[in-house]
């Protein structure tokens, strides 16, 4: 199986890598299987229909993930079993199959076989095992074939009847073992961390040391209390002496003074001692906290390899699907990065790599024409930079980004006017690819081409306090560069004051903070601008953008008492994505290391604020979300100048024809679209839809592919051939996930193609918004 898995020569390093990847797969696969088995057990016990649907959904996802994982490490035997199993669960989800106790028994048998196969480290299997495997596959296919169209809810979930137990106790003796395995875990495996013991030990040690610190501090508290008590005694004594003042002799008086002095000296000595011990404790605690933080950070650091080891398989698979030959070369996989950052990086990187394969690198024949090697190369490199950052470069030797096409797409989506388009610098044109809605792809697929992907990638990178840039040379290739902090804790921020409020601006978004004269800020078309380095940038008031209470607009020349720079204004020039805006602040306090904390579950997402930090004084200060802030600033500017918003909003009167044979899917899609403000008409199959389309007026048609009478492809073809209807955009929603089908979709003239398994309403709405 190793052959061709990695395109480089097989040396020892590769073998090690193979071992590691298989080990990783085993752990992951066991998790999926455990969750699947837990689901099975619950399925046997549960009757409420909603819960059953939930469990089936979870199990479907688990088996789907297991299949994917198996495929990426070339475990064909496992994949072969997962395939029919997944189909069954997909059908169960759609209520097309009735769950029977016999099928549950079969699922147990399957889980058992899978667990054995996963545990055995080799990809081969014994004759007996193969026989069982073929048996299982045959039986699974039989179950899948019982597929009937049950229109509404499923009828039977009497899986917990006696029958199922008898079915279970028969041929499958290992079933019990599987269930034992799964008792302790819940189906949801989210938020798990695997930590090597070597990293945990120091943590444990530190925790123990903390007990010592706690005891010491308790003691100091007691010592201080004692001192306090003693002082109080002396206070009482002093009052006694005050009352005796009249009768006191000089000798007595002197004696008293001596005693007082002596005791004061004693107290002082003890006090000094407590202070010294306190300082000692504080010093220890400082060290302890610092090393604890460091060790904690180490726990969360993982080598990049964990993130990227499935990438070569993925690249091979996708490029194979598209008849391309592509090598992925990864460098710097040993670099350690905070786990939380790695996790957030996974999707953006996969997206970028897909982009390279889909749009960057051409088919072999194209490459030959351009005198390029037949095999394309994608380079993914992780390099540690000074100042605790990592630079990720992803480059391909493909076609490069066609700037003309980008400009066309931007103008088409309304982001640019023809006029401004002509004035853009080449690199400014490239930056347009981040704009949502700009895609140069001919057909929209759910993976790439919707022009949303890069926007999301960029947002993710910025959320991690990173920066992203792109370089591209036509016919030579494209390079994406991402600069990220290695750890989430190494975050620097600038503390600013606006009126009585304090905020943190992430340093990475602050180009600079400057003081300018009020006169330098000019007013144009109702909003303020300033010229900096020969560039005009907008000026907005941070207080106004944030909507601070009792906000006083900054009056030009506002006098600050005792200030010689009374008519000076402080501007923080912030950059994010394509925005560069100057924000007025009252004061810049300092730049400092910031530990960003979440706002709590109640505040899931707050506009303009990404988190909060606690200053040394204990004061809580919000950390601003610059990408939000930019959008808020733009919308305020828009409101003020009362120009019509160029944002794409949903026109309330757009009419949509939804074609879907499943009553539940139909209701779901109708509901989503109506909530978004569209007027929806439904049709039950292609023939019905075609009739309705001819008699009614529609702005877009959303259709299922698999339907009785006339399917989605036929419908699309008919619409394209009809004079009156040919211009209507058609979105195909389908359960089929093959490239052939997508291409079939293009052939018949569909404008977009969404695969049901990855269906979400945001997806659908974005596409519709774009097409209408």
């Amino acid at each position, binding site marked *: 199986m190793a052959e061709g898995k990695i395109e480089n020569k097989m040396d020892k390093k590769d073998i090690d890598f193979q071992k590691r990847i298989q080990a990783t797969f085993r752990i992951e696969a066991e998790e999926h299987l455990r969750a699947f088995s837990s689901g099975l057990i619950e399925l046997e016990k549960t009757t409420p229909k909603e819960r059953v649907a939930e469990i089936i959904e979870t199990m479907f996802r688990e088996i789907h993930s297991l299949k994917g994982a198996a495929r990426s490490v070339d475990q064909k035997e496992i994949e072969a079993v997962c395939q029919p199993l997944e189909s069954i669960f997909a059908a169960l989800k759609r209520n097309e199959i009735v769950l029977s106790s016999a099928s549950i028994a079969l699922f147990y048998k399957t889980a058992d076989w899978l667990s054995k196969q996963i545990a055995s480290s080799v990809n081969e299997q014994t004759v007996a095992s193969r026989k069982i495997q073929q048996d299982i596959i045959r039986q699974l296919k039989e179950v899948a074939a019982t597929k009937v169209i049950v229109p509404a809810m499923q009828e039977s979930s009497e899986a917990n009847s006696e029958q199922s137990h008898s079915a279970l106790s028969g041929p499958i003796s290992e079933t019990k073992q599987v269930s034992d395995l799964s008792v302790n875990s819940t189906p949801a495996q989210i938020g798990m961390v695997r930590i090597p013991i070597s990293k945990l030990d120091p943590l444990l040690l530190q925790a123990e040391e903390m007990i010592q610190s706690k005891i010491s501090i308790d003691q100091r508290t007691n010592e201080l209390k004692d001192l306090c008590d003693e002082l109080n005694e002396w206070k009482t004594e002093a009052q006694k002496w005050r009352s005796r003042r009249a009768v006191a002799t000089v000798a007595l008086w002197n004696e008293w003074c001596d005693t007082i002095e002596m005791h004061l000296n004693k107290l002082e000595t003890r006090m000094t001692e407590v202070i010294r011990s306190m300082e000692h404790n504080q010093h220890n605690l400082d060290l302890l906290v610092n090393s604890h933080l460091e060790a904690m950070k180490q726990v969360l650091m993982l080598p990049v390899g964990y993130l990227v080891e499935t990438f070569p398989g993925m690249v091979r698979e996708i490029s194979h699907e598209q008849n391309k030959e592509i090598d992925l070369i990864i460098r710097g996989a040993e670099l350690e990065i905070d786990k939380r950052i790695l996790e957030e990086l996974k999707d953006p990187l996969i997206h970028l790599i897909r982009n390279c394969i889909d749009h960057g690198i051409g088919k072999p024949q194209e490459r030959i024409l351009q005198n390029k090697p037949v095999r394309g190369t994608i380079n993914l490199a992780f390099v540690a930079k000074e100042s605790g950052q990592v630079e990720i470069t992803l480059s391909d030797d493909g076609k490069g980004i066609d700037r003309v096409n980008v400009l066309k797409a931007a103008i088409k989506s309304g982001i640019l006017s023809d006029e401004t388009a002509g004035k853009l610098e080449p690199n400014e044109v490239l930056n347009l690819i981040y704009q949502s809605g700009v895609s140069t792809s001919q057909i929209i697929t759910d993976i790439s081409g919707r022009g949303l992907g890069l926007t999301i990638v960029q947002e993710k990178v910025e959320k991690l306090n990173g920066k992203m840039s792109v370089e591209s040379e036509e016919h030579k290739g494209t390079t994406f560069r991402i600069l990220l902090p290695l750890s989430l804790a190494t975050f620097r921020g600038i503390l600013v004051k606006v009126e009585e409020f304090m905020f943190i601006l992430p340093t990475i978004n602050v180009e600079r903070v400057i003081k300018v004269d009020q006169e330098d800020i000019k007013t144009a078309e109702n909003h303020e601008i300033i010229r900096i380095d020969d560039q005009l940038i907008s000026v907005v008031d941070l207080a106004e953008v944030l909507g601070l209470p009792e906000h006083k607009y900054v009056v030009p020349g506002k006098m600050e008492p005792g200030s010689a720079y009374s008519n000076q204004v402080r501007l923080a020039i912030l950059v994010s994505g394509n925005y560069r805006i100057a924000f007025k602040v009252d004061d810049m306090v300092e730049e400092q290391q910031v530990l960003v904390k979440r706002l709590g579950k*109640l*505040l899931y997402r707050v*506009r*303009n604020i990404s988190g909060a930090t*606690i200053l040394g004084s204990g*004061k809580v200060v919000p950390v601003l979300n610059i990408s939000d802030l930019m959008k808020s600033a733009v919308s305020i500017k828009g409101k003020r100048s009362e120009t019509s918003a160029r944002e794409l909003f949903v026109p309330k009167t757009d009419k949509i024809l939804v074609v879907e044979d499943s009553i539940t899917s139909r209701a779901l899609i109708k509901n989503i679209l109506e909530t978004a403000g569209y007027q929806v008409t439904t049709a039950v199959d292609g023939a019905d839809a075609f009739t309705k389309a001819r008699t009614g007026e529609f702005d877009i048609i959303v259709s299922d592919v698999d339907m009785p009478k006339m399917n989605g492809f036929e419908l699309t073809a008919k619409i394209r051939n009809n004079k009156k209807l040919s211009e209507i955009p058609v979105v195909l929603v389908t359960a089929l996930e093959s490239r052939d089908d997508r291409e079939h979709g293009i052939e018949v003239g569909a404008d977009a193609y969404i695969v049901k398994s990855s269906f979400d309403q945001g997806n659908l709405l974005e596409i519709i918004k774009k097409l209408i």
Partner: protein
Amino acid sequence: MQICKRNKEMKKEIRIKLKERAIALAKEPVEKDTSSANIDVIAFTLGAENYCIESVLVKEIYPLTDFTPLPGVSSYIFGIINVRGQILPVVDLKKFFNLPERGLGELNKVIILSNEQMEFGILADAVHGTQTIDLEDIRGIPPTVSGIGEEYLKGVTKESLILLDAQRLLSDEHIVVNDEVN
């Protein structure tokens, strides 16, 4: 000095509370057997009303010394506070329930509500400690007693304390701020 005193009071309060809880816990099995259902509540004042809330969902009572308001959120989000290094959002129930604002309260306590899914603080003018309430003594709400939507109330006790439904508050999705920028 004052802080010291307050801390002392707090400690005393906590000690008493813990004792009471311990006693209540020790009693519980017996009471369950005799099937007379009691619940422990924490009584507090907010604005013009006296409320109580089930103590099982109260994680702790925290003194409100400082807070940070957040710009641009609904007014019922009073702000965020620092609870031993963690950020805790604090809700002003008067605003959430649309109760009339009658003068300035003392607002010096935060009752921290918590279950597995959610955690936040609610403001209180004063906290009066715990009591045990017989569930049978809880009556329905006369519609005029309070401006609060009935769905958040469990009833009124003999002592005219309004029993808030903490579980409901914690699981209410209307209270969660999830604000996208367009």
